């Protein structure tokens, strides 16, 4: 493994409060303060002049569809999409086929993930078969290598089962990631309930169905002391519930997706299935509340909910299309646009939300450029404008609302454990 010098970039490392032009040194896959004269001699130099050098991005919410749905994505193609988007650590949801409710499936994912270009961490199910009826073997799953528990996409409906799940998982110091949705209120729902769903004649998903579960989880976290993380918060009321919970010192965290930051239900006017996801896009007031929540720390991090689906699966009537969009290759430019350009966040703040703060939720060894840490780096040009085309991308699927759109901010180089895995539009 060669030594690396990343030279002359704007080095932003929120974990060490660093933000200035300088060099980053890597030896033997780790960050070092500097290289010895001997190391310098055979070091590869990456010119980062005019570019931002930051920790590799961390996404604690992706779907890589392997095993079982590899026509949508594989661990390899998903990891390539991650690397192309500047992500070096990703956490995969367990709704594969079979679902990750047993140690064998964890082992399978880990064996494939070992050859992936980025760090891929599996999660396990809260309940057997994600059916919400019986606890999955959390201890065995952890021994096999999962980093968190979730029934993502199928929120545990029974309050009693959720209560026991968080109580049990706490013994292993495992965080529960919850997709907050009261199913009884969202049967057949395909978009936010409101003025737009009424006009379009589509079945509405009221934000109250999210708020109720967020409130439940806050109550259960306070009651048990267990850490519960709310996935993809979409509603202003849920943001407010989280704000109060944090003021009360309750052990809860939450994420927001780039699409809920950037888009609203107004995008659904033409029934374009590339804007259909669960939870759905909501109102402008909700969108603004999510941005405010990220600004004041009520919401902890960005997670993409990268959810690939094959083109023919999305090419149908709106009611029948599966939920979800891909997001790894567009997350950084979308967040730069919405948060930095339009809402005047400082760039280090946005990087913090996409690196250190995401990693901290699950205590992943990532999100910093500090000497001794694994050398995961994202180098990007914050000013480059480029045309995103899903067909030219790395994900196996093309279900993105940003297809054929101009984006500003482009990842130039991605380094994982000291090795360049992506550079100038190509996997290395």
């Amino acid at each position, binding site marked *: 493994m060669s030594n690396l010098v990343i030279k002359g970039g704007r080095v932003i490392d929120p974990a060490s409060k660093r933000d200035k032009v300088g060099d980053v040194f890597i030896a033997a896959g780790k960050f070092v303060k500097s290289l010895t004269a001997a190391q310098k001699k055979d070091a590869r130099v990456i010119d980062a002049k005019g570019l931002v050098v930051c920790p590799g991005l961390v996404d604690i919410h992706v779907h890589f569809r392997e095993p079982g749905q590899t026509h949508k994505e594989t661990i390899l193609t998903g990891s390539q999409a991650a690397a192309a988007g500047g992500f070096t650590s990703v956490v995969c949801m367990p709704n594969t086929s079979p679902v990750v409710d047993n140690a064998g499936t964890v082992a399978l994912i880990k064996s494939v993930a070992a050859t992936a270009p980025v760090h891929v961490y599996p999660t396990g199910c809260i309940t057997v078969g994600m059916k919400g009826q019986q606890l999955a073997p959390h201890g065995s799953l952890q021994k096999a290598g999962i980093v968190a528990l979730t029934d993502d996409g199928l929120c545990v409906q029974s309050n009693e089962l959720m209560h026991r799940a968080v109580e049990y998982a706490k013994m292993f110091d495992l965080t529960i990631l919850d997709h907050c949705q009261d199913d009884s209120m969202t049967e057949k729902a395909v978009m936010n*309930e409101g003025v737009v769903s*009424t006009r379009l004649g589509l079945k509405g998903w009221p934000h109250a169905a999210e708020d109720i579960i967020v409130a439940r989880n806050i109550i259960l976290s306070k009651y048990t002391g267990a850490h519960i993380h709310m996935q993809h918060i979409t509603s202003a009321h849920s943001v407010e519930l989280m704000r109060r919970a944090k003021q009360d010192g309750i052990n809860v965290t939450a994420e927001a997706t780039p699409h809920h930051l950037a888009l609203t239900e107004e995008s659904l006017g*033409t029934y374009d299935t590339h804007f259909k996801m669960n939870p759905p896009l909501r109102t402008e007031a909700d969108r603004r509340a999510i941005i405010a929540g990220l600004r004041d720390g009520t919401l902890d991090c960005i997670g993409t909910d990268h959810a690939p689906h094959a083109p023919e699966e999305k090419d*149908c*009537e709106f009611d029948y299309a599966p939920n979800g969009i891909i997001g790894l290759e567009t997350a950084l430019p979308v967040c730069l646009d919405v948060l930095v350009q339009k809402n005047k966040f400082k760039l280090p703040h946005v990087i913090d939300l996409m690196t250190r703060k995401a990693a901290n939720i699950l205590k992943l060894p990532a999100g910093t450029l500090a000497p001794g840490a694994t050398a995961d780096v994202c180098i990007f040009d914050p000013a480059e404008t480029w045309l995103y085309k899903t067909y030219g991308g790395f994900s196996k699927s093309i279900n993105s609302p940003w297809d054929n759109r101009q984006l500003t901010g482009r990842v130039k180089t991605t380094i994982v454990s000291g090795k360049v895995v992506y550079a100038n539009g190509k996997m290395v």
Partner: protein
Amino acid sequence: MPWHRKHLLTIEELSRAEIEQLLATAGAFRRILERKVKKIPALRGKTIVNLFLEPSTRTRLSFEMAAKLLSADVISFDAASSSTSKGETLRDTAQNIQALNADMIVLRHSASGSPLYLSKVLGIPVINAGDGAHEHPTQALLDVFTMREKLGNLKGRKVVILGDILFSRVARSNIHALTKLGADVTIVGPSTLVPHWFEAMGVKVSHHLRSALADADVVMLLRIQHERQGVSHFPSLGEYTSMFGLNYTRAEWIKPDAIIMHPGPINRGVEIDSDIADSPRSVILQQVTNGIAVRMAALYLCAGGQPENVLTPV
């Protein structure tokens, strides 16, 4: 102004002038329906396929009748007999119909937005015969056609739409058509089926039957689509009837010269009592007849005909 639309997908996207063109063209066809020989050669040599993926009697028969009176060849099929039950997608089914040299597709589908989707994947005209809870444009056109026959100009006229608005494509298309034509629309019914979200579409929302009926020029009743609802929207049909059903006593609250409409199918004794449905104020069957003329107009214009001379073959 020439007609330029290839598809009839929604009332929402039509301008007031386009609605007027459709109504004027329907008027010309309506006069032809009075003749002894009603058939005209306007669409001779054209094939129209009625793709009905949701059950329908009235609308399908009406479209078939309209196509035949225009001398088009018409093929109708429904979901049960089609390949959709074998897992074929809507795109593939429709593209096959197009490849069979159909000149036009009339689509009825339970999924909102599906006619728009189909119009993007096909090269031939698509006519929306009802999509989910979204729109039913020809129904609204025949409704306003009938209202104008009875009341003349609709500007400032008070129209009450009473019943299950939430699940109704008829209500949505009528709201768009009536507001574009300057009518004052009030939607009435239980709060779960008439949510306040509709106010953004330019209508008044009321849950008080008597005051809403008092100054109405038109009372349009809608069926309670209990097959579409969960159990939670209202207690029972009996409760609906007791609170909102139009019976003899409540019909007294309506002005004597107001008309009573219903797109059908009617549920006698539920949303409307028989003596009201069959009363002289009821124009329910005239709506059905006018529906043929309106659908002739929609087919004719979208096939490339122009409003000024409906007797000229396309």
